[in-house]
């Protein structure tokens, strides 16, 4: 599988990563090298359909409990005001 700059840019956008063009070209080359190793899996004869290799994860009882205290959350917050995380405006104003 060959990854070019445009494909690397598409994947970077999905992954919320950003690279300049030079870094993007380097990433495309590295991904191509790793995927050409991984492409050995394409030659395996594997069964069709879904793999049946997992057990269901048991769920815990849905009982109420106290969440973390606000000061504990605030301590690690990069930006915090009045009990809220501060982020850039999401909805455009007037």
């Amino acid at each position: 599988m060959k990854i070019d700059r445009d494909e690397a840019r598409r994947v970077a956008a999905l992954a919320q990563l950003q690279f300049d063009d030079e870094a993007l070209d380097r990433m495309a080359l590295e991904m191509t090298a790793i995927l050409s190793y991984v492409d050995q899996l394409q030659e395996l004869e594997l069964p069709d359909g879904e793999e049946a290799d997992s057990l269901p994860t048991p769920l815990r009882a849905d009982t109420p409990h106290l969440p973390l205290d606000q000061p504990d959350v605030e301590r690690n917050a990069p930006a915090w005001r009045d009990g809220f995380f501060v982020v850039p405006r999401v909805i455009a104003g007037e």
Partner: protein
Amino acid sequence: MNDLLELPWTKARDEASPEEYVRACLQAVEHLNPELNAFLSIDREAGKSSLPVAVKDNIVTTRLATTCGSRMLESFVSPVDATAVQRLRTAGAFVIGKTNMDEFAMGSSNEHSAFGPARNPWDPTRVPGGSSGGSAVAVAARMVPVALGSETGGSVRQPAALCGVVGLKPTYGRVSRSGLVAFASSLDQIGVVTKTVREAAEMLEIIAGHDPLDSTSSMEPAAEFTRDIGAGVRGIRFGVVQEAVEQLEGEVAENFASAITLLRSGGAIVEDAHIPSLRHAIATYYIVANAEASANLARFDGIRFGRRSGEGGSLEEVYRASRAEGLGEEVKRRIMLGTFALSSGYYDAYYGRAQKARARLRSEIVSELQRFDHLLTPTTPEPAFRIGEKVEDPIAMYLSDIFTAPANLAGIPAIAIPSGFSREALPLSLQIMGRHFAEAALFRVAAWFEAETDWWKRMPPINAVTVTR
């Protein structure tokens, strides 16, 4: 007084007061850390109890930061302790420091730590392995008696092997993952690094067992893991994985052959085993693990915790700039690969196929473990390599885990134990794999091998006992 650090901690405990022992460990850390870079943080006031434990820096603790070896979490202090840490505290142990690691546990050499690599005490120009490199160095150099690490594809066993100590990966689900920062949730498991097999069993007794905070932790009761130590290997059936043997070269091949001879001399039955999918294990592993990582690491966006970039106007630009600044090259590479493998148009060909290949590998291993009690390989294809040797070649680095990743993909327990030394005086290691939840049987045979060889008693040239004497 630092001769104490040479002993297994259970024995040292008989010979000194807890205060003396803890002081010796702190002194050892002070002396050696500037050279070995095993610890990212040290708690000098933590405790006076008799068991200081070093904890990998991706297992959360309330008294010290949990950086995961990343700039992204440089100043992150968890509001809670991981369940394994809580259980250690309840048992009277305390966290003496947090250990260096490849960023977010992604690496096999510790070179991908944002805070510089830990160094191998057998030869500081060589890597200690990874990703739990700091934990392996701390125990090998006798800075601490025991350490916690974490495994996704061999991250406890491989550094334990390269540093000449014992490394255990328990069965998937044996130890709660609550508080272990997630890399690949279907593979991750907390493990232990110790000098001796008995210490590994005792550590597992403390940290194992179901935890309501981790629904994948097993209901299987935590056994008395030391109970079969001393029972020997007579009549035990070992399968030698031929797909590993065919890749071996030189000293590693010779060392592995002599381990087999020794087991036979103890009355073990040793025959050929086959895991044909082993040769595809690394390709399978890197798709499954990175796909899961790409989802798990999405939480590091600079909003709720961790580093936030000052660049960027919109919310999305803040995410991207924060991740660009906070994450290292290897982590980005793996997130990119994982995102690609899950993306529309490629999902079936990559992630889907890898999951099927994983199912096949698992069924091959489980079926061989019906014929045999244990499967054997060397832990690593070669002893510790030089710092810088593989850092530009991701595939060569990934292949360091070729013999360890299968146990993670199959969810079985496996242990790495010292099996001798190369001509350059670098540690070599034997890997013993076992059936799901059969850790007690692993400890039994590993302890026999250890008692016959006593390799663990040999100390690296850089060690706390002589440096601080």
